[in-house]
């Protein structure tokens, strides 16, 4: 039960490397925030600063309105689930879970009751006497979760907690984490590099890149109105296609001659046009609003088909997500029409979204929450 407020948090490591360049974020009580970004963008650094495991070089961190910059990890009342679980190998599952309570001087009987209660909640009651090395990966993950839950902390922190599990277990645990977090109502910050995990878990997503926040918002908001080319390419799978386009009489003209009518008011002469694979549809006849492409690879997924196609004069192949099973084969010519109402335009130089200059004042951005 807590709010978190991050105000211009910076981290410069002793070797002089600046991993975070001013992070602003306000996290509501009971909210599940997922921080997502490519490897090395500073996610773990941020989380470790929240935990108190890394010092804060500059800026202010507050939990429930109280500045905690200089508090020890133990004094912040947070729990953390590590990527490698960090279970104490010489203690039983019950002792692992009860360790924090013991440190706080909770009497033995009460400790036992709480550990058993939590074990029941997450299905560990038969494993309480085992040592970590006698558990499977999924069970270890559960113990790590249990160890966090039993403490009833103000904030949960998760650092890629599912990345050591196999795909199926990952999906199960993802659902379970979401369910538990909502049930317990504890504020949580969850770090991952997996955008699918991020999309399905998050109340709000924080997309990071190179030590900056690129955008904050609900998963759907980020999907529909990515604030930058980076976010557009990172959120959504398969990734968005990008094409160079020029302005011509209010329309957009592609190098291949295709013209796309757009309602966007574009002032730049040249822009980066983003089209999601699912917003390309197959048509039988070519006209001047379609793209004429050659199929390079087909991935039939059952519910839909991914066609990797090449457009003349375009270096990167495009991906189109076509409905159902499609009778296309390598080498075929495919006519694709972009959905003109769902295009994304980005500045070629800055990568910022063009039709959304005031992106920072949209309802789910942090500045409005802070205001």
């Amino acid at each position, binding site marked *: 039960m807590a709010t978190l407020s991050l105000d211009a948090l910076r981290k410069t490591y002793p070797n002089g490397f600046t991993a975070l360049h001013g992070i602003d974020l306000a996290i509501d009580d009971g909210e599940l925030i997922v921080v997502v970004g490519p490897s090395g963008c500073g996610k773990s650094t941020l989380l470790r600063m929240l935990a108190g495991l890394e010092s804060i070089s500059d800026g202010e961190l507050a939990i429930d309105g109280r500045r905690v910059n200089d508090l020890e990890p133990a004094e912040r009342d947070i729990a953390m689930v*590590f990527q490698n679980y960090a279970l104490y190998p010489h203690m039983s599952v019950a002792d692992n879970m009860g360790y*924090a309570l013991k440190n706080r001087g909770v009497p033995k009987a009460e400790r036992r009751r709480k550990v058993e209660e939590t074990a029941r909640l997450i299905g560990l009651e038969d494993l309480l006497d085992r*040592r970590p090395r006698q558990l499977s990966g999924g069970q270890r993950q559960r113990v790590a979760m249990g160890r966090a839950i039993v403490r009833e902390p103000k904030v949960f922190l998760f650092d890629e907690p599912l990345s050591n599990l196999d795909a199926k277990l990952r999906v199960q645990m993802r659902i379970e984490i979401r369910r538990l977090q909502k049930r317990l109502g504890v504020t949580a910050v969850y770090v991952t590099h997996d955008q699918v995990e991020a999309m399905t878990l998050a109340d709000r997503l924080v997309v990071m890149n190179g030590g900056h926040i690129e955008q904050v918002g609900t998963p759907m908001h980020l999907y529909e109105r990515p604030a930058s080319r980076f976010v557009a390419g990172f959120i959504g799978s398969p990734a968005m296609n990008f094409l160079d386009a020029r302005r011509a009489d209010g329309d957009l003209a592609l190098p291949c001659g295709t013209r796309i009518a757009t309602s966007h008011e574009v002032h730049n002469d040249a822009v980066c046009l983003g089209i999601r694979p699912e917003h390309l549809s197959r048509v039988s006849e070519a006209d001047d609003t379609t793209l004429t492409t050659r199929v390079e690879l087909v991935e039939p997924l059952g519910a839909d088909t991914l066609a990797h196609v090449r457009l003349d004069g375009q270096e990167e192949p495009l991906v189109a997500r076509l409905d159902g099973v499609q009778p296309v084969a390598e080498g075929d010519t495919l006519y694709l029409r972009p959905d003109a109402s769902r295009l994304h335009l980005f500045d070629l130089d800055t990568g910022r979204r063009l039709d959304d200059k005031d992106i920072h004042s949209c309802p789910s951005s942090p500045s409005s929450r802070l205001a």
Partner: protein
Amino acid sequence: MATFQRHRLTPWILLAPQLAIVAVFFFWPAAQAVLQAFYVEDPFGLGRTFVAFENFTRVLASAEYYRALGITVAFSIGVALGAMALALLLAVLADRVIKGAHAYKTLLIWPYAVAPAVAGVLWMFMLAPELGLVSAWLGALGIDWNHQLNGGQAMALVVMASVWKQMSYNFVFFLAGLQAIPRSLLEAAAIDGAGPWRRFWTITFPLLSPTSFFLLVMNSVYAFFETFGTIDATTAGGPGGATRTLVYKVFEDGFVGYDLGSSAAQSVLLMLLVGLLTLLQFRYLERKVQY
């Protein structure tokens, strides 16, 4: 398979030099010692008489022997605990050092390269009653240091010299053990509300227990056998036998007293004792240190 059969002799030929060395310098003398333990030799070494277990009964009936046993136990506990505790302390500190860590570690490992006798002499000079630097400081503090007269001080001297020498060995193992503990465990413990002291005793120390156990065995063997040079160079078992450990007594009785039968019997007993000690440690301690 056939090619392997034909070369059955080759491994033995390759091993032969090593085996010959072990046989000549270890098995043969050891066998001689065991054999010797059952004979009494005449004073001029011209003939010997088989006496069965008389050498052993004589040794086990002598008060001198039990005194040496008691001294050895006290000495070994002092050396093992001292060397391990100090090494652990230094390793924990070294584990935290970031700048100049390499130089610091190298310096701490040096004493291991010093010969036992040299280590002993070093300490003896520092603590020499009339000339020593440290004994002068002690004198200033009102402590009258003279290990040539004071048995307790002599014991302290040999313990210190032996500890100093063995510490490096322990330090290397403890440091490696500490560095093998994942950082995230200590971080998790910190988040779980354990302060540095508690983290050490509830996480670090238990996780080091396999290392500690190994070192306990090694340090016991060291204290029993390998401190001979240190003792011989500093106190030569004195004053009045105050630092005469079992291994020193083996030497004294054999090569000073020329009672070879008794000396051999004592060395057999010593071997059995260390064997028994190691066995006990493995049986009762090792089980506790597994996790």
